[in-house]
């Protein structure tokens, strides 16, 4: 009651301060010595990710109980990444997410990139976490080719993270998808482990039962680019992986298996021969050749025109054409994840189209990411038809492909809100719910009423988390991070923010990848009192309800 009074007083004071025209968004001048500054928890705006936004509100409330002063601020994706990604020492705390992608079925990509110290400057380690112990483990697992030994190393690395809490992992969401089972045969839609039914195997396998032979999916965000040499928005990658083939593809079981390659063979730990399938054609009718394959893997390494794919080909020492269907990759170091994160990741692009483009770009400041083909040409199971910016992307079946889809057209509709999305699913305006971040209960009700809607939810490889900037005090202090993490009630998050449709997380390796994690070692449960005790032991002082640094520690911030 008293607390409420104080809040009200503060609120009315704030309001009256507004009234005289002051804009007290932050009032650092008032802070007394040693008090931890007011903090802003950045998040995607509520519309874009309502669950994470709710989670942020809950987290702010509980962190305030520790004596911090945290306010949540929602913003559009680009604005958030502008701050977090490109101004690495100017923010304090943020909500973030990693989305599941087929190539993330191997834990390496997320584990290494997110926390290895080499990626602090401009890569994924935007939080500035540095640990020699972790670096060694992350490097060791990369070159370990024995699966069990590698799993051990990965588990040890996760244990280090659980101890240091550089990120406060919250949940592995269960992605909920749905489709109209009166239009597509129920058993023809394929679930891929860690990704759900929204995957290429469903698009290829889905069998139309009646006259409707178009699969119509929804996306919340508009597309940014349709470009095989650019990893842009999440929705963009749904499209690129259908237009362009890769040598290998991640199977529904999560393994890298031959696709455009007929077969592959390891000659030794650093040499692999890949045989290209016969008779493949680009959508413009030209044949797919081994020269195209070599070009696709070499182009990220030549100059700076394809920066985003560089990490995936960096380990390649040379590519050699053996005959008109075989290429030989020689690697610098042995790599356990090479099949998944290189051969199943890099898009095969036609040299006759891209070579002139790349040559032209070499004389200009832009790189290949800035280039948008009017009519994208790949060799994949779907051909590009049209892209209307705020409306839809239409792809059509490629009957000449070695694995042609059953559906005639594959269409994405851009629908920015969940209310309309649900309604469209009911009315048949869409028939495959591919992007839903609303309340799963509502979807279940709708499905029960409709009768023809199948819902499939599966735990994601991706995860949602809150994180703090370890370049700035007090977050460089492990005790502080542990306390913050301990204060978060993840079970409550699952219930209150994700409506029960998620699993508690404490590691970058999802429960969907059970082989790579030790569930017991990663168990975590909230304890606010213990969190407070942890802070007290570390010397933090609570004065008038506000947390202060330990005696003698002064707040110094890098950057302006």
């Amino acid at each position: 009651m008293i607390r409420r009074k104080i809040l009200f007083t503060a609120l009315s004071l704030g309001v009256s301060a507004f009234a005289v025209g002051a804009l007290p968004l932050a009032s650092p001048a008032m802070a007394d010595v040693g008090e931890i500054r007011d903090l802003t928890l950045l998040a995607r705006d509520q519309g874009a990710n309502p669950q994470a936004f709710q989670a942020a509100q809950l987290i702010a409330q509980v962190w305030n109980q520790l004596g911090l002063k945290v306010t949540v601020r929602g913003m559009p994706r680009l604005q958030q990444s502008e701050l977090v990604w490109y101004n690495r020492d100017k923010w304090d705390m943020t909500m973030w997410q990693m989305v599941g992608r087929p190539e993330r079925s191997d834990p390496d990509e997320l584990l290494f990139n997110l926390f290895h110290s080499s990626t602090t400057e401009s890569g994924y380690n935007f939080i500035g976490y540095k640990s020699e112990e972790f670096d060694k483990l992350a490097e060791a697992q990369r070159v370990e080719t024995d699966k069990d030994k590698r799993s051990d190393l990965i588990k040890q690395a996760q244990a280090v993270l659980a101890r240091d809490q550089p990120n406060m992992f919250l949940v592995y969401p269960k992605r909920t998808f749905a489709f109209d089972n009166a239009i597509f045969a129920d058993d023809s839609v394929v679930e891929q482990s860690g990704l759900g039914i929204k995957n290429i195997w469903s698009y290829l396998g889905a069998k139309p039962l009646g006259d409707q032979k178009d699969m119509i999916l929804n996306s919340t965000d508009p597309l940014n680019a349709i470009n095989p040499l650019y990893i842009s928005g999440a929705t963009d990658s749904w499209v690129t992986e259908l237009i362009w083939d890769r040598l290998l593809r991640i199977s529904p079981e999560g393994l890298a298996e031959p696709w455009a390659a007929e077969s592959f063979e390891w000659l030794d730990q650093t040499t692999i021969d890949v045989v290209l399938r016969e008779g493949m054609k680009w959508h413009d009718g030209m044949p797919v050749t081994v020269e195209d394959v070599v070009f696709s893997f070499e182009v990220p390494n030549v100059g700076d025109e394809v920066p985003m794919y560089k990490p995936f080909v960096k380990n390649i020492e040379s590519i050699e054409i053996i005959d008109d269907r075989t290429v030989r990759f020689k690697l610098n170091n042995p790599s356990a994840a090479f099949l998944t994160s290189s051969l199943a990741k890099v898009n095969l692009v036609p040299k006759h189209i891209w070579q002139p483009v790349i040559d032209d770009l070499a004389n200009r400041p832009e790189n290949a990411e800035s280039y948008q083909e009017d009519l994208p040409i790949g060799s994949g199971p779907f051909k590009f038809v049209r892209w209307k910016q705020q409306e839809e992307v239409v792809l059509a079946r490629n009957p000449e492909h070695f694995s042609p889809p059953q559906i005639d057209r594959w269409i994405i509709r851009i629908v920015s809100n969940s209310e309309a999305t649900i309604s469209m699913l009911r009315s048949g305006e869409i028939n495959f719910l591919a992007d839903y971040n609303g309340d799963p209960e509502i979807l279940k009700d709708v499905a029960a009423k409709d009768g023809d809607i199948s819902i499939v939810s599966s735990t994601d490889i991706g995860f949602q988390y809150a994180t703090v900037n370890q370049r700035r005090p007090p977050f460089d202090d492990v005790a502080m991070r542990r306390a913050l993490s301990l204060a978060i009630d993840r079970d409550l998050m699952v219930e209150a923010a994700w409506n029960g449709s998620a699993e508690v997380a404490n590691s970058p390796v999802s429960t969907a990848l059970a082989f790579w994690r030790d569930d017991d070692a990663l168990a975590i449960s909230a304890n606010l009192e213990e969190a407070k005790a942890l802070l007290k032991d570390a010397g933090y002082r609570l004065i008038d309800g506000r947390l202060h640094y330990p005696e003698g520690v002064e707040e110094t911030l890098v950057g302006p």
Partner: protein
Amino acid sequence: MLRVMNRLLHMVFVLWAVATIMFFMFRLMTGNPLAAYIDTNFTIEQQQALMAQFGLDKPLWKQYIIYMGNLLQGELGQSFFYRKPVGEVLMNAFPNTIVLTMGALVIAYLFGIPVGAYLAWKRGTWVEGVGIPTVLATRAAPEFWLGMILLAVFAFNLGWFPSGGANTAGAEFDSELARFLSLDFLWHLILPALSLSLYLQGLPLLLMRSNMLEVMQEEFVTMARMKGLSEWAIIMRHAARNALLPVVTTFALSIGLSVGGNVVVETVFSWPGLGRLLVGAVASSDFPLAQGAFLLITLVLVTMNFVADLLYHTLDPRVSHGSRN
């Protein structure tokens, strides 16, 4: 004729001023206007080369001259987000917005004018007592809220209308014109146009009413009354015609105002128009696109002000007399 030239010059002046203000807003308030375009994958040299390419290394006044020169040639630059010329992106959205606006205005005026005349005729009765507050309430209701309710009732619950967009997914048309004339498009247009017109009908209605009241005081109406014409005949033949003129001129004005005000309704109905484009561009820091969308909306607004002004002076001889004096 001199008047028209004068007004035209005036319009050009306003356009120039708004474009100038926009230039300085986008240059001075954004820090680095290329921030959303340059990512850290670019090397320092590339970043500098890009700055040079966009002319950002030049002094502000030079940048301004380049910008104005480009504008005069209709060159709006490249959208950061879509990686296409801004003009092309805008022209995909613009027709949708114009059709929505015109559709809504036509409904609003077809409803508002007769009902306004009717309310004038019924002045002092209970009809007026109920009618006026109702009309005012529709003008006071947030458009997106009305839209949400219409959407919930007619699309989500009854399923009579689609839940958003301008066309059925994957629909094929021979031409843009064929698309606008298709039943499919009309079906998608109805709900958003209706929510807009719910709001827009208030203006012609109230204007018509007050003009009618005014005209009915004038001598020729009194004369007609004395000649023994029926009240209905007076209203239709004399009063309404005279009261209508000023209402018509506001139609043009409303087009200009509405194109900018459509933003929220376009968002509710996922309508692929200019307003949603602007919102999206602003949210993704796509400054060239945001600037282009803003200028296009301004162009419509200023042009329609000009048209309304001309109409007003052409239709109402009293005014031109006034200005000549």
